[in-house]
Structure formats: structure tokens, C-alpha cells
């Protein structure tokens, strides 16, 4: 039984691609067969975040147009032999693919994979419609900002209208120092406003930038963001995992930082 999950947000730059890379890698760490599909035709990015940009021969549009077989376009991950990437086309646009074609492609992949993750482009146009067409459930990524939450609300409405069975929320880029002094909405504020199930809260973490620089997802590593992503993967698989105490850890950290700043 495979599960098809679309990672979406409405607004750009909130961390969809980073989330897709880390959740996908995390599921592979849990010995699942996973394929990541970059559906952002024209603006491909997932390959770079995964560090697989030099291995691309064929892409999503090639598969759809029948220029190659699916297996030829799938790129095997550097570390995990059960993790694959289907890269997007860089020189085409969203209209190169239709929702029906996406659905057919996904149905073909279901036989070979436990999880199919779809990295959705920003916006609510063609690219979004393509990405959600074959999905069973959705991960909506937002940051604790007014604009991102507003867009997430719109996206949730559209997902519900398209009858997605499950919608879960990831609150990304939390800055606990700011939350603490009341200058950023906290996770429960965001959940209250959007009224969907929370599946993860990821702190704003320098390690994310470093891992993206290196093209190696950090899920499972020692840092807070790495732990948060690992927990999301376990929750996706149905496990009950308590939420990380972001406040306690960063609290001490920011206090230390403040101390150094004063001196």
C-alpha cells in the first residue's frame, strides 16, 4: 500500500522543497521505498537541495511525453538506495503536463514505492492542480507570518474542495526567541487559526542553510530541525511522537547568546 503525499503551501519560500527533501530522506532512513517528484516545472530546485543536480538525464516532462521510461528518469540517492528523485524540467512550463497525466504517472509508480512525495510549486494555478491531482494526503507548510498563514488557509480550502483525505500542517521557521517575547505567533496560535491537524513544528535553524549548501538533507541529525523532521516522518507513519520542546532548548541557547552579545 503506497501513500501519495503532496507538500504544498501557497506562498513561496516557506520551505516546501526543504520539507520534501527532509521528509523523503527521513522516510528512507526508516527503510521505506520513497520517490520524490519535483512538480515545479520551469523552476526546478529539489535536485539541488538533494545534491543530485549533476545526475539528471531525463525529467518529469520526458516521462510524460514518452521520451523515456520512468525507470530511466529516476535518480537514485547518494546515500539511500531506496530513495529516488524524479526531477522536473527546467526549460518547459507548467502547461507541459496535465492533472490526468500526473495521475497516470503516480498510479504507475504506486506499485514500486511505499511513499510518493510531490513537491508542489508556489501558487494555486496549473502547477498546483497538477501536483494535487494524484495525492492521497497533503502536508501544508507555513511559517508564523500573516501572509504565509493567509495563503495556507486558501490552500487548505482548495485541498478540501478537491477531497483530499488528510491534511496536516507543518509550522516552519519558528524563532522561539521571538515567540517568547511575543513578537511571533506561536504554534498553537497558528493551529487555532488554520484548524487543521499539526504534524510538526520546525525551528528556524542555521543548519538548514548549511545542509542546503551541501546538498545533504539534515533529517535525523543532532540539531533541532533534524530532530523535528525525523519526528514528522514517524508521525506520518502513524506513530504517536511527542512534540519537541523547542522553547526549552533554544531558550537556554538564546540566553547564552544574549549573554555574549552584552559582553
Amino acid at each position, binding site marked *: 500500500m503506497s501513500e501519495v503525499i503532496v507538500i504544498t503551501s501557497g506562498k513561496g519560500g516557506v520551505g516546501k522543497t526543504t520539507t520534501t527533501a527532509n521528509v523523503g530522506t527521513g522516510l528512507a532512513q526508516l527503510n521505506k521505498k520513497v520517490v520524490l517528484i519535483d512538480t515545479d516545472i520551469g523552476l526546478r530546485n529539489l535536485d539541488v537541495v538533494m545534491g543530485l543536480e549533476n545526475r539528471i538525464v531525463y525529467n518529469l516532462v520526458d516521462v510524460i511525453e514518452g521520451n523515456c521510461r520512468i525507470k530511466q528518469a529516476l535518480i537514485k540517492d547518494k546515500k539511500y538506495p531506496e530513495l529516488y528523485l524524479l526531477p522536473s524540467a527546467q526549460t518547459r512550463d507548467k502547461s507541459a503536463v496535465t492533472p490526468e497525466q500526473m495521475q497516470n504517472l503516480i498510479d504507475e509508480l504506486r506499485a514500486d514505492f511505499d511513499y510518493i512525495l510531490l513537491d508542489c510549486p508556489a501558487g494555486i494555478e496549473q502547477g498546483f492542480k497538477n501536483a494535487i491531482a494524484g495525492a492521497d494526503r497533503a502536508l501544508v507548510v507555513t511559517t508564523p507570518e500573516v501572509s504565509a*498563514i*493567509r495563503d495556507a*488557509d486558501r490552500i487548505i480550502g482548495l485541498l478540501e474542495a478537491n477531497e483530499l483525505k488528510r491534511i496536516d500542517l507543518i509550522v516552519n521557521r519558528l524563532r522561539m526567541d521571538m*515567540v517568547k517575547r*511575543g*513578537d*511571533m505567533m*506561536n504554534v498553537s*496560535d497558528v493551529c487555532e*487559526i488554520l484548524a487543521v491537524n499539526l504534524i510538526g513544528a520546525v525551528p528556524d535553524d542555521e543548519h538548514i542553510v548549511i545542509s542546503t549548501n551541501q546538498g545533504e538533507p539534515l533529517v535525523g541529525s543532532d540539531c533541532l530541525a533534524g530532530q523535528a523532521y525525523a519526528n514528522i516522518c514517524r508521525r506520518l507513519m502513524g506513530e504517536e511522537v511527542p512534540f519537541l520542546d523547542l522553547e526549552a532548548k533554544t531558550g537556554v541557547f538564546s540566553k547564552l547568546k544574549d549573554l555574549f552579545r552584552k559582553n
Partner: protein
Amino acid sequence: MGLMDLFKKKSSGDVAKDRLKLLLVSDRASCSPEMMEKIKNEIIEVISKYMDIDTEGLDIQITQTESEANNGTVPALFANIPIRDIKHGK
């Protein structure tokens, strides 16, 4: 809040939350700013027949209110229309 307000300015996180709540009510009711503007203008037009109102101070928005029938909140149209003078028919 309450007592806290006396000592502390509202934090920007709370401001964001309040703004969002209002924003989403009108978003979800799919009520565009243009439509709100039209409603506002027509209300002004109607009320002006009977009273002299302060159109500058007029405030109209879609908010949430406690439902009278059952629990939970429902969207409501809220209008604050300052009256300058009531016209006593000519």
C-alpha cells in the same frame, strides 16, 4: 489580557493574530475588498437619505460573532456609522 494591557503594549504577535483572524473571515466568506467597498457605498447612500452621517468615520467589516442559536462562531457584518445629525423630514 485585561490588566496586562495597562502595563504592556500589545505584542506584535498578538497584532498579527488579530489581523489574521479578521482577514480569514472575509477570505473564507469570499468577500472581495471591491465588494466590501460597494456594500459600504450603498449603505452610505441609503442611510444618507435619512441621516447626516460621517462618511469618513464609517467602518464596515466582516467579523466573527458568537452564534445565538448554538455554540460556535459565525461570520457577521459589522458596521459602525457615526451620525452627525438626524434629518427631520422637510
